[in-house]
C-alpha cells in the first residue's frame, strides 16, 4: 500500500471503512484507561488535585499544534503534488483542530484561575494559542465562503502554510519571553521533568486523544469525499436535464 494507492478516493473509502471500527474501539479503550489513570493519579504537592486538568489540557494543546502541522503537510500536498485527497485532509482537519484548540484554551483558563489567580493573561503563550484558534476559524470561514472546492483549496493551502509560522512561536514562546505559562516539562532537552505518576497518565491520554483525532479525521474525510461525489453527480444530473 503506497500513498499513490490512497490517492484513489474509492480505494481510500474501502480501506478506511475496514479500519475505522478498529480505530474507534482502540480510541475508546485507551480513553477509558487514560481517564482511570487520571482519576487515581496522586495530587501534586503544590497544585493539589488541579493537576488532573493537565491530563486534558496538555493533550489538547499538543493536538492543536499537531493538527495544524498535518494541515500544513496537506497544504504542500495540494500546492506541490496536487494529491486529490490533500485538500480533503486539510479541510476536514480544521474543525477538529479548532475544537482541540478551544479545549486547550478553556481548560488552560480553568487551570489558571486556581493556580495563577486569573482566567486569562495576555502573555506570549496564551496569546499565540488564541491566534492559532482564530486562524482555524478563518480557514473554516474561507472554505465555506468559496463554493468551488479547487479554488478554495489553493487559497486555504497558502493561508495554512503562512499560519504555520505561528507553530514555533507557540512552542518556544515560554523560552523566548517571560510568560506566566510554565516552560516545557515533557518535550524538552534532558527528558521529561514530570514524575512517572503524572507522566504515564499524561502520555496515555495524549495517545488516546491522538487516536481520537485520527478516527474523527478519517471519518470526516470519508464524509467530504461523499459530499464531493454528491456535488459531481448533481452537476451531471443538471447537465443531463439541460441537454
Amino acid at each position, binding site marked *: 500500500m503506497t500513498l499513490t494507492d490512497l490517492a484513489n478516493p474509492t480505494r481510500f473509502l474501502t480501506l478506511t471503512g475496514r479500519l475505522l471500527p478498529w480505530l474507534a474501539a482502540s480510541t475508546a479503550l485507551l480513553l477509558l484507561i487514560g481517564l482511570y489513570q487520571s482519576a487515581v493519579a496522586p495530587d501534586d504537592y503544590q497544585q493539589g488535585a488541579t493537576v*488532573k486538568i493537565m491530563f486534558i489540557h496538555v493533550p489538547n494543546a499538543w493536538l492543536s499544534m499537531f493538527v495544524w502541522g498535518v494541515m500544513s503537510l496537506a497544504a504542500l500536498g495540494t500546492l506541490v503534488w496536487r494529491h486529490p485527497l490533500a485538500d480533503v485532509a486539510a479541510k476536514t482537519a480544521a474543525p477538529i483542530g479548532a*475544537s482541540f484548540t478551544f479545549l486547550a484554551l478553556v481548560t488552560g483558563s480553568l487551570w489558571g484561575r486556581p493556580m495563577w489567580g486569573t482566567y486569562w493573561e495576555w502573555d506570549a503563550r496564551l496569546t499565540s494559542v488564541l491566534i492559532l484558534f482564530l486562524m482555524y476559524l478563518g480557514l473554516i470561514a474561507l472554505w465555506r465562503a468559496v463554493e468551488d472546492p479547487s479554488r478554495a483549496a489553493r487559497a486555504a493551502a497558502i493561508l495554512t502554510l503562512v499560519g504555520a509560522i505561528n507553530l514555533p512561536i507557540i512552542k518556544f514562546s515560554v523560552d523566548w519571553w517571560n510568560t506566566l505559562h510554565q516552560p516545557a516539562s515533557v518535550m524538552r532537552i534532558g527528558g521529561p521533568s514530570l514524575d512517572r505518576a503524572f507522566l504515564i497518565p499524561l502520555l496515555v491520554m495524549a495517545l488516546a486523544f491522538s487516536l481520537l483525532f485520527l478516527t474523527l479525521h478519517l471519518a470526516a474525510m470519508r464524509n467530504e469525499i461523499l459530499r464531493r461525489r454528491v456535488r459531481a453527480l448533481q452537476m451531471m*444530473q443538471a447537465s443531463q436535464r439541460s441537454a
Partner: protein
Amino acid sequence: MSLGPYASFILTSYALATVVVLILIAWIAIDYRHQKERLRELDAAGIVRRSGRSAMDIR
C-alpha cells in the same frame, strides 16, 4: 477520591472536553447519514458515476 477546594474547575474541564468530543462525533455521524441520503436520492433518480458504478457504492 477527593478533588479538594477546586473540584468545580476540574469537573468543568472534564465535562467540557466530553461535550466537545460528543459534539464532534455527532456532527460527523449526522453528516455521514446526510451524504448517504443525498447519494440514495441520486441513485434513485438513475444518476450513475462516470465509472458506471452506482452512486451508493461507498465501500
